[in-house]
């Protein structure tokens, strides 16, 4: 844009290097016209949706701009302008739901979240009662993701070390392929597997630990992939220097390679934790849910924040929906804190 206007300025009078252009002021005019036409349409026809307003105004703007551009600038530039508008619209379309989701969660959740909400469970709270809180669900979520990390991280690290430091040939390619397969595993399948394996085949009761097992399966591929990327980034000079000093290979990996890659690995783990903290489907099938506080993840059903949101959102009473929004705000704050911590660690530890 700027270069072509400069060219036009450099060629005053007869020489037309860039062809005729629409003056800039035309575009806001078309935009205003499109919005005005949409407002008229809304007054005349029985349409109310705000989503539709954006879509109709956008379409009208696109048509107006294309007609004007074809008339003055020719079809090639009209297409270019059309695509530019579409790309900007696409970005707008992506930002709208993000803003809408965050705005609803924050505005509706903030009305409900207070100290009482965070420190009380749903025990003895009837379906129509306004009270109750998420304390039991918060405890459940924190214990389950802690257990899942405890199980998933060491295992995933070993797999990543094998893939990067030792893996050659067919076995390592197969493992790498199945890490990808696990990445695409629907979360509900992880839940069904733990249901089939742990609860039905081994005849265990649904507990927080069963939920943690399901979350572990979902964490493994994410942690393996990120740890693999981080281990690959460790310069080979470090490994060779260590070997040259006579340090054995496994000590090199444990004492040199892992500490160098550690910040990146921690970031990957935090992102994986943030991802599984919001998983509902596997927990639905494995922890059973409860209204009471249960500190012990190894016995008796537990609750969890996502499960709490799901069960409250499915009820018709407005007080339940309000509780769901409050829990949603808490969950989103938890996930965003984990994300922010991950990015902070990545930034602070960025050496080189």
């Amino acid at each position, binding site marked *: 844009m700027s270069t072509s206007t400069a060219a036009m300025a450099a060629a005053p009078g007869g020489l037309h290097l860039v062809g005729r252009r629409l003056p800039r002021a035309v575009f806001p005019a078309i935009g205003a016209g499109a919005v005005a036409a949409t407002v008229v349409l809304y007054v005349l026809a029985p349409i109310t*949706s705000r*989503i539709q307003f954006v879509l109709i105004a956008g379409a009208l703007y696109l048509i107006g701009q294309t007609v004007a551009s074809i008339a003055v600038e020719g079809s*090639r530039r009209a*297409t*270019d302008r*059309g*695509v*530019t508008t579409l*790309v*900007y619209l*696409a*970005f707008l379309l992506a930002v709208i739901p*993000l803003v*809408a*989701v*965050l705005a*609803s*969660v924050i505005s509706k959740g903030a009305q409900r979240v207070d100290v009482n909400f965070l420190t009380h469970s749903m025990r003895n709270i009837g379906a129509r009662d306004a009270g109750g809180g998420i304390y039991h669900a918060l405890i459940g979520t924190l214990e389950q993701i802690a257990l899942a990390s405890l199980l998933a991280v060491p*295992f995933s690290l*070993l*797999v990543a*070390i*094998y893939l990067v*430091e030792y893996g050659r040939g067919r*076995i390592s390619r197969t*493992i790498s392929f*199945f890490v990808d*397969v*696990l990445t*695409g*595993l629907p979360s*509900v*399948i*992880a839940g*069904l597997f733990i249901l*089939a*394996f742990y609860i039905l*085949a081994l005849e265990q009761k649904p507990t927080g630990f069963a939920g943690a097992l399901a979350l572990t*399966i979902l964490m*493994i591929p994410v942690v393996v992939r990120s740890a693999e990327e981080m281990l*690959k980034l460790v*310069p*080979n000079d470090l490994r060779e220097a260590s070997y040259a000093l006579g340090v*054995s*290979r*496994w000590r090199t*990996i444990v004492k040199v390679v892992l500490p160098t890659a550690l910040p990146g690995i921690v970031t990957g783990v935090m992102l994986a934790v*943030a991802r599984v903290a*919001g*998983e*509902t*489907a596997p927990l639905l*099938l494995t922890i059973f849910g409860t209204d009471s506080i249960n500190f012990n993840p190894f016995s008796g059903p537990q609750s969890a924040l*996502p499960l709490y949101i799901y069960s409250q*959102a*499915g009820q018709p009473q407005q007080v339940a929906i309000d509780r*769901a*929004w409050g829990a949603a705000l808490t969950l989103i704050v938890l*996930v965003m804190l984990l*994300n922010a911590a991950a990015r902070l660690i990545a930034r602070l530890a960025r050496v080189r």
Partner: protein
Amino acid sequence: MSSEPDGPRKGSPGNDAAVATAEPTNSSDGARARPMDALFKNLTRSAGLGLLALIAAIAAFLVLEATDALSANTGNFLTTTEWFPNGSPPVFGVAALLFGTLLTAVIAMAIAVPVAVGIALFITVYAPRRFAAPLAFVVDLLAAVPSVIFGLWGLIVLVPRMEGVQKFLTDYFGWIPLFATDNSVVGRSIFVASVVLAIMILPIVAALSREVFLQVPIAHREAALALGATRWEMIRTAVLPYGRPGVISASMLGLGRAMGETIAVALVLPASFGISWQILSPAGNTIAANVANGFAEANSVGRGALIASGLVLFVVTMIVNMIARAIIARRREFSGAAA
């Protein structure tokens, strides 16, 4: 096109070869043999093999726990559209669920992919370089929102607001069979579920497409511009052909994600069985959503039936994901974009 033969390993400066040569060769010397080395190597390898065993166990136990229910089933599991596994005799089939799963996922993909490609183009070509990274971060934030929150938002906020859009579609485009309705439009429909799914897979498809578009050689883009192409012509002739396999595989990964999504669909869709192309009608169900909805009241046959349907979902998503990976693998230079 393969200007970077070693593209996928860019981050690792010759890792494989160098490590292999730098490996301390002291195994021949008995006195200096290092048992810990072998132990550690075997430990990591058994973890790797354990991962393979995990996948095998997932498939094996799903089959094992599904067989009892399948043998008790009096209908054909693949073609029956009913779902009464708790009745006696139990009758259930995955046909309607599979249809709903594929339909919602494909519509979600049809909505999400053009928008995601637009976002990727916006970030790589249109946006000023300074804003590119923050904008990409904003899109990634969408991916961090838990799916149950999308479900809650979809049910409470989006469904009432989409009612008008759906009425408009069925009033003016009802002559297209897809948009026709037999009963009144009430908001909760395959279409709204697909919109929610589209929002959820948008960041994944956009992020992968962005990675691919970033790898288009600058020389290709500048050559097109130097030949007098407009920006769109440059995108059409240089960026899109180069990025097509990446975009296709990103879409397939998004499709797999959309098919497996459970809670958002379970909250938005009214659980119903039957095969209908009327995406605006309040009907439809998916395999994953049915698991969430039906689990609470399922007896032992019912649980087995849900596990059997999960097995179908497992196989279908695995096929879709494998196709996506195969497309990436065929064009090795894109494997750096694989998440």
